[in-house]
């Protein structure tokens, strides 16, 4: 798991430019599924065929980034955010582009640091002129944080744990999942960070009986953290709600039952802001029962996101247990339409 997570974390893949991370994930799972394919928006689908209920499990593979909007005469790159990006966190960061070009984030002269905005920042790739910069970078290219993943005890620090931690869990679960009656669609979704877009169109394509997202969530266990009853290392969470979805209560109960039966530690998650792919899934077509398993994560959207390896292992166990039992839609969802 450690090596897989490190590899996924370090791979390039901001929203809209998921080709590289998609290739890496496909390599990991292609021998364990019946088919894989992609679509116009860059979603990666991996299907394990079955005769029972159609279950979609979505883990978004995109990460936040910086899109180049302008290259000035001296070769400095101006950029805008792709997803939620703090200008304060960006100061002094190394960044990397799809072609491997690297740069550092610089700042204009500023009287007061609390007035720092993205417009005051630029990326310096060491170019001396506009033409020099253009040899490596075009307007529209997207950079991500450039950072190695580090293993510290039982925890891992790195960029893009949001949501490569979720991707790692889904990859492992698919690799270890025995043949089941359920038809399982693992979807590594694109463009979650800019508006749950990949999951919206992939859910439409699949039209599953049920949708489950695997994502990361915030925690409340660090010094002076906002109040939130989720801690790192106490197990994956079963989401109750966030700003995008109120998870189906029967699915929440089902996941809790499975966790208890298999002695998997878990926590309930109420996230007051933010959303996840389940937000798009549950509103697709006639409405689809949806829920979320989350991996607790500290320092979200920084290059120092931290997750706990036990939480990931327990999430894999929970997901596998859920996917292996034949899903009786009528039993769990009495109102389910045929």
């Amino acid at each position, binding site marked *: 798991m450690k090596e897989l997570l490190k590899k996924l974390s370090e791979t390039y893949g901001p929203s809209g*430019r998921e080709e590289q991370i998609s290739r890496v994930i496909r390599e990991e799972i292609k021998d364990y599924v019946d088919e894989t394919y992609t*679509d116009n928006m860059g979603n990666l689908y991996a299907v394990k065929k079955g005769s029972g209920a159609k279950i979609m499990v979505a883990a978004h593979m995109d990460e936040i980034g910086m*899109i180049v909007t*302008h290259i000035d005469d001296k070769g400095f790159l101006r950029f805008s955010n792709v997803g939620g990006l703090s200008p304060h966190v960006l100061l002094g960061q190394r960044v990397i582009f799809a072609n491997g070009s690297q740069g550092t984030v610089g700042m204009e002269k500023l009287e007061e640091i609390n007035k720092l905005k993205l417009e005051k920042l630029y990326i310096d790739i060491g170019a001396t002129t506009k033409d020099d910069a253009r040899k490596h970078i075009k307007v529209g290219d997207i950079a991500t944080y450039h950072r190695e993943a580090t293993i510290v005890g039982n925890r891992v620090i790195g960029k893009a744990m949001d949501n490569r931690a979720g991707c790692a869990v889904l990859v492992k679960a698919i690799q270890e999942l025995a043949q089941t009656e359920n038809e399982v669609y693992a979807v590594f979704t694109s*463009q979650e960070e800019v508006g749950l877009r990949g999951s919206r169109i992939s859910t*439409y394509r699949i039209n599953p009986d049920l949708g489950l997202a695997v994502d990361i969530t915030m925690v409340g266990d660090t010094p002076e953290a906002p109040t939130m009853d989720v801690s790192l290392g106490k197990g994956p969470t079963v989401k109750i709600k966030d700003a995008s979805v109120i998870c189906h209560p029967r699915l929440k109960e089902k996941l809790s039952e499975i966790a208890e039966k298999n002695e998997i530690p878990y926590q309930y998650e109420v996230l007051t802001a933010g959303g996840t792919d389940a937000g798009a899934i549950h509103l697709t077509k006639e409405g689809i029962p949806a829920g979320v398993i989350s991996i607790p994560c500290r320092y979200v959207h920084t290059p120092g996101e931290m997750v706990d390896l036990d939480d990931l292992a327990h999430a894999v166990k929970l997901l596998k247990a859920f996917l292996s039992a034949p899903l009786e839609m009528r039993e769990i969802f009495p109102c389910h339409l045929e």
Partner: protein
Amino acid sequence: MLLKRLSEASGASGDEGEVRSLLKEELSLHVEEVTTDALGNLYLKKGFGRKPRVMVAAHMDEVGLMVVGYEKSGLLRVVKVGSIDDRVLASKVVSIGKDRIAGVIGAKAVHLQKPDERTKAIDINNLYIDLGVRSQEEAEKLVKIGDYATFTAKVREAGDNCLIGKAFDNRAGCAVLAELLKEDFDLELNAVFTVQEEVGLRGAGVAAYSIHPDVALVIETTAAADVVGSKEAAYVTKLGDGPALTLMDSTYMAPQQILDLVAETAEKLAIPYQFRRLTTAGTDAGIISQTHAGILSAVISIPCRYIHSPASIINLDDWQNTLRLARGILNAIAEGGLRLEGTA
């Protein structure tokens, strides 16, 4: 000039009838099928059955006001339809309802304003439309609640091949699409003049659902901010530098193969082009690209200064180059220039 007639026509979001009729009359003879739908989108189809199926969309609605109440004095209370800067509203002439009644957006004269009022923009709650009547009863005879008001402005030529006028967003785009419909392309061309873009990309969503194209091209008008007080990196676009290609906005991200196709087409045809340096706001491509199981979409825009005002400026070279680029993109698509559904 069709662009002039389109610009001068009245058609706020939800009330696009006049623009729709004008386009229908102008273009019916050039296409195989003309239809509309429940929301009022205008569909013109050409090359029925050819592959690929391409949707080209230009929204025909403009920003405006809606009458929501009367004052005893006969003045009208209004709300905005679409986003308009409060600072451009005062003292503008508008035309209201289907009879195109004349009115003025009024505000307290400068002599009567308190010192602190003079330093602030007058917001919509302190603005009203004045019909030149003396009572509510007289106003009610002329204008109904729910009537739309739009800016009125005759198109004027200016400076270096420029036009001044209203509603270039997006009648300039409509005029490009109208020209394309007079030509022939080796693909199934589904032109849609969409409604209600300015209030939330509403027409384009149902149009894309109904057409279900393989690929979509959106022709838009975008802000040019190459003016006093803006630094070069914040220009959004520059008037006269050619059509602008959208990288991303709040609703959409351009796929790499779209960026490559548009840039290569422009370079091959020696058409000047630029990138839109703003990553917020949205266009019809936002909703189209998320319709059905995802539709590959591109957006090109005509730069426009003082957008959403009655005195916008566009450059006709930009307009011509947008037409050339759109034509080039359609030809490149017809020649198989896009991977339409990829496999890993």
